């Protein structure tokens, strides 16, 4: 039986090259080997994730949500209304994807149901960008499922060689990883090659290198919801750059290792402990104190 295991991006590209298959398909074959489950079972499990993602985007865009703490909610619907008014600077398509991404994290903050991708705090970027673009482009659910496997492959390389946890690597490891995953998936869905997918992922991760995790009052709300907004824009932009033929000068695998070492250099105050960054501002401290009472 053929071995589909890979640890590095370069190994993943070699597998794609040998089998003449896209990244999503290789990741699916790897999962079939590892889990000893059938193709239908594994695709069925991913279809449940896609269904939950779609429901979370719709719930969040319908508006009227408030987070458990009462700090956030309603911004996704606000942005979508602005996008629809036709006066936006970034363009309707971009803003629809960004609003959809924020919607999922607002649902998360209100104790709604989401799919961690790769984490709950970064759960908006992948579904928001994929589903908003699928609407415009007419991508089928079958194509979207394989795109989720593609994103899974990129997330896997980051998780194995660096980290996808804010406590270990800061926000770069969460929304940075999510943006890299989404950029790669969008590139594959748009007809890009496996190499272009990893260029898109590398560029997305580079763009937020050093981003700290500084949750106000320790909650997955501020600045997480807006970090998902910039993560979605980052993913779309990097996918477009890769599709335009722009390459990352630094290979994906090296960017991942650089991200890991930046995470290690970061003070623990900047890694999810709510002791640094915007979490340490007077306003954030006042909010935290108010919520404790």
């Amino acid at each position, binding site marked *: 039986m053929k071995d589909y295991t890979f640890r590095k991006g370069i190994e993943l590209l070699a597998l794609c090259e040998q089998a003449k298959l896209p990244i999503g398909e290789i990741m699916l074959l790897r999962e079939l080997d590892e889990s000893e489950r059938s193709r239908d079972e594994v695709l069925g499990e991913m279809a449940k994730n896609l269904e939950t993602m779609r429901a979370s985007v719709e719930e969040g865009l319908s508006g009227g949500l408030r987070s458990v703490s009462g700090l956030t909610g309603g911004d996704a619907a606000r942005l979508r209304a602005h996008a629809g008014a036709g006066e936006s600077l970034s363009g309707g398509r971009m803003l629809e994807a960004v609003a959809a991404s924020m919607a999922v994290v607002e649902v998360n903050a209100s104790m709604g149901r989401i799919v961690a991708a790769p*984490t709950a705090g970064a759960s908006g970027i992948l579904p928001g960008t994929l589903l908003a673009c699928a609407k415009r482009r007419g991508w089928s659910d079958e194509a979207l499922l394989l795109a989720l496997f593609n994103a899974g492959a990129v997330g*896997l390389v980051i998780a194995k060689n660096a980290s996808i946890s804010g406590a270990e690597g800061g926000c770069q490891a969460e929304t940075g990883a999510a943006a890299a995953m989404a950029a790669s998936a969008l590139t594959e869905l748009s007809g890009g090659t496996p190499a272009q997918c990893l260029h898109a992922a590398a560029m997305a991760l580079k763009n937020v290198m050093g981003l700290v995790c500084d949750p106000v009052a320790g909650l997955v709300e501020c600045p997480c919801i807006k970090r998902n907004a910039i993560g979605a824009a980052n993913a779309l932009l990097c996918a477009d750059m890769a599709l335009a033929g722009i390459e990352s000068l630094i290979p994906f695998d090296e960017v991942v290792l650089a991200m890991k070492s930046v995470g290690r250099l970061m003070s623990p105050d900047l890694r999810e402990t709510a002791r640094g960054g915007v979490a340490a501002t007077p306003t954030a401290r006042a909010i935290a104190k108010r919520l404790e009472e």
Partner: protein
Amino acid sequence: MQNYGVFDIIGPRMVGPSSSHTAGAAKLGLMARKIAGEDVKKAKITLYGSFATTGPGHGTDKAVVAGILGLAQDDPRLRYSMLLAREADVDATVELSDEPVDHPNTARIELEGADGKKTLLIGQSVGGGNILVTNVNGLEMKFSGEYPTLIVRHTDVPGVINMVTLILAKEQINVAFMRVFRQGKRGGACMVIETDTPVGERVRQLIKDWCDPVTEVFSV
């Protein structure tokens, strides 16, 4: 976690906002309910460390209660668990403690069943929605709940491990991980056996019948 599958990256499906503070907390509650093995009438929950400081904002209290009521980590009713508890006539109280603990996300769950049987679970939410149970009914132990888990309480005497594992072997049940804990030489002890396939009532009864030093057997 060394070997990631695709669903460790795209997943789990869960109720937010935090995999450790919400999904893991719900799992701890559900584990306590499974160990109690029956409908719960009373629940006293104590949250420590970061569970206590940021728990209320993450719905940690609601998540633990939801688990105790039998709801899974992705059940959308999780956010209404306090209401569901009242409807089900379950007296659930949550206390926040600033006592120091080993792990920042620790919960202590005391349950009382309809017939007055008491169950105690202490556990940690260790990240990504994964949990580690560290104490059941006063006995120190460690297990994750990722596998079907058989817990055997027994007296610390030679040969008891052999007796139990022989029965499992005869029943074609493969042991994935196994640890033995004891309170002292020849005192109360406990085996935690994580298996690839669940251990049913019949096999549990066999263990009770054939192994004299065994005092209690249950699966979660």
